[in-house]
Each structure stands twice: as structure tokens, then as C-alpha cells.
């Protein structure tokens, strides 16, 4: 599905076809769900927030500017909901790993067990280091190096100027490096 297909889906939705929204949900539910997992911690809350994000996007779809990319616009809606959730639930936020080592491994061969375990620990450590970053720095890094978004898309998703988005990515990498080198610091409070 490319930009034209997305625009076609949006046009059909605006003409009253609810099911035309399905391909957009299918395509982007995973990154939005993972965003919510990073913020909410629990999969149940993340699923609720993901659902709210898509419903909010559907309600505001006529405000989506034709010709722009859908994902950064959707991500900005999700990010606003995530911020609201984080403000209301600061005390309940989990600071432990949201990664499930069993799902990371995915390999049952005895010879690969050690490597898989090391990789799992690396990811857990990375997640801890990411978790200590302010939300906007963390999401800038995820969008840039995990979802491979352009700087322009990151700027739109984070509601920043292009230069501010570049600065967040650059500064976020430096902060992540410091956190990662410093190791896991236990229960440090999340920044929003």
C-alpha cells in the first residue's frame, strides 16, 4: 500500500465506506500498539489506547490534508493520547521491561540458545535505556531508526520543526548512549 492507496482509502471513508478504513488500521496498528506499550506498559491499556487512536483519527479524517503522509498524522494523534494517558497514570506506570524474552528468542535450537539469550538481554538493556529518555526523544529515535521515517515525517509526527526534529534525534542518541553505558538504573521515573 503506497500513498495513493492510502489516499484512495481515505476518500472512500469520507464517502461513507467504513470498511475502507480497515487497510489503514491493518497497516499501522503495530507501530501504534508498540508506541502505547512503551507508554502504558500493560498490553490491555496499550490495546485500548491503540483503539482510541484509530477512532480519533477516523473522527478527524476530514481534517487530514490530502497529499500528506497518513502515518505521521496518525502518530501525532497517538502521541497526544499517550501523553494524556501518561499524565493521568504517572503513579501506575511500569518501569520494568515490556519485552517478553520468550517472544524475542523465537529459536529452539540448543546451539543458538546462548546467542538468543545475549540478544534478549541486549534488547532488554536497550529498552531500559530508552525508557529513561523523555518521551519525545525516545519516539524520535524509534521513528528514525526503527520505523525508518524521514526527518520531515518525524517532525510532523512530533509536531516539531524540521531542525528541532533533527536536534531531538541527535540529542536523543547521545542521551541513549549515556544511559546504555550507565547500565540499568532500576526504577527511574519516566519523563514525558
Amino acid at each position, binding site marked *: 500500500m503506497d500513498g495513493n492507496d492510502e489516499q484512495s482509502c481515505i476518500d472512500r471513508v469520507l464517502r461513507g465506506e467504513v470498511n475502507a478504513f480497515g487497510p489503514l488500521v491493518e497497516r499501522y496498528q503495530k507501530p501504534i500498539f508498540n508506541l502505547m506499550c512503551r507508554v502504558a506498559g500493560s498490553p490491555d491499556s496499550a490495546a485500548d489506547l491503540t483503539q482510541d487512536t484509530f*477512532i480519533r483519527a477516523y473522527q478527524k479524517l*476530514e481534517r487530514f490534508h490530502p497529499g500528506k503522509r497518513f502515518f505521521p498524522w496518525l502518530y501525532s494523534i497517538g502521541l497526544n493520547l499517550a501523553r494524556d494517558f501518561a499524565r493521568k497514570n504517572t503513579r501506575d506506570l511500569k518501569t520494568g521491561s515490556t519485552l517478553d524474552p520468550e517472544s524475542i528468542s523465537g529459536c529452539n535450537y540448543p546451539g543458538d540458545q546462548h546467542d538468543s539469550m545475549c540478544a534478549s538481554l541486549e534488547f532488554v538493556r536497550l529498552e531500559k535505556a530508552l525508557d529513561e529518555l523523555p518521551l519525545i526523544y525516545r519516539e524520535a529515535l524509534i521513528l528514525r531508526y526503527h520505523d*525508518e521515517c524521514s526527518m520531515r515525517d518525524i517532525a510532523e509526527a512530533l509536531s516539531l520543526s524540521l531542525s528541532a526534529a533533527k536536534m531531538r534525534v541527535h540529542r536523543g542518541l547521545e542521551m541513549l548512549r549515556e544511559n546504555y553505558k550507565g547500565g540499568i538504573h532500576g526504577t527511574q521515573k519516566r519523563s514525558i
Partner: protein
Amino acid sequence: MERKKDPFEQLAQGPSAKFENTPCENNENQEILALKRLIHSMPEKEAPAGLTESILSSLEPKIIPRWLLIYRWALRPRTVTFQPLKLVPAAMVLVLGLAIAIQFGPGREDRGGTGHEELIPVTFTLSYQRAERVSVVGSFNQWNPASHKMHQLGNRNTWVLELRLPAGRHEYAFLVDGKVVVADQSSPFYQSDGFGNRNSVLFVNRDEPANI
């Protein structure tokens, strides 16, 4: 979302030439590259099964005003492509069409009034004895005595000038030797000039030339 091939894998496997300045910088950049690679390959959780159905079931069909749909259609960027080889004949056809429209299109006779074919030949004649020079002055030449000088015929008393004038009403008179204003005695229509003289009035028809 489609996952591309890991772009940081090669960078992390061997030091890039531009990071080989100092051991300190090299170590620092290697750490950054390793982090980028780690973020890139970080596993994702799968969204819960049935989430799409759950979302779609909670949505109501949208009812958008037609003007908004048209507005959004007009806002959408479009890409226009053309081939130069096809553009040249298209431009030639366009120019040819414009030329035909200008030549044969409606309203051609009403435009400007300066075309040669729109002027009707009119011959002015004056019999006047002992004149040195005679001019025709009128509304068609802004009463300029130098613009339309008459010519003598063989008998020396007859002055003639042939002009081509646009159809319509014209006032005129003859100016003899630059000072005597003489109205055309053969004209049935006159108009006072407000200074005690009379100007002759000429009606030029589109269908027939005039001899005055």
C-alpha cells in the same frame, strides 16, 4: 509496515573510513552505530488479534458535505507528465486552431476597425477656381489639413482625393489655401461647427462606395 534490509549492519561490522580519525572518535561512533543497529532490530509486539474488527465495529459511516469533498479533491496534489515529442505537435495544433479562430471566428468585423478590408472607398471632389492647394479635413483625420491633400485634375479647377474610410457618419470640409473653409455643396447634410461655419456630413455604407 514493511521492514527494509538492516542499513546499519554493514556499518557496525566494520569501521567506516570517515570515522577513522582518532581512536576516541572511532569508539564513540561505533557505539552510536551499534545503538542505531540495535534500535533497528528491536523486536516489536504484535497487535492483539481482532483489533481491526473491534475498531471498525465501533465506527459509524461518515456523512461529509459535498462541498468539502470537492474542496479536498481540489487540494490534492497531482503529477503532470508530458513527452516533448508529443508536446510539439500539440502546440502546433493549438496555434493552428487559434489562427483559424482569429481568422474566421465570430465578432471578427467588430474588432478594431483598422483592417484594410473593412474600409470603404470614398472619392472627394471639389470645383474651385484659382486655388493653390486644397485639403480635406474631417473627423476621420482629426481635422488635420496636412494629412489628406487633394490633387488637381487636367482642367486645374477640379480637385480630387480618394480615401478609404470606415463605415459610419463622418463630418468634413474642404480647406482652400490653408485658410478658407468650404463646405461640400453636393452634400445634402450639414452640421454647424459652432464657429459660424458648416461642416458637411457623410454617411458611409458598408455595401457601396461613395463619390462625393
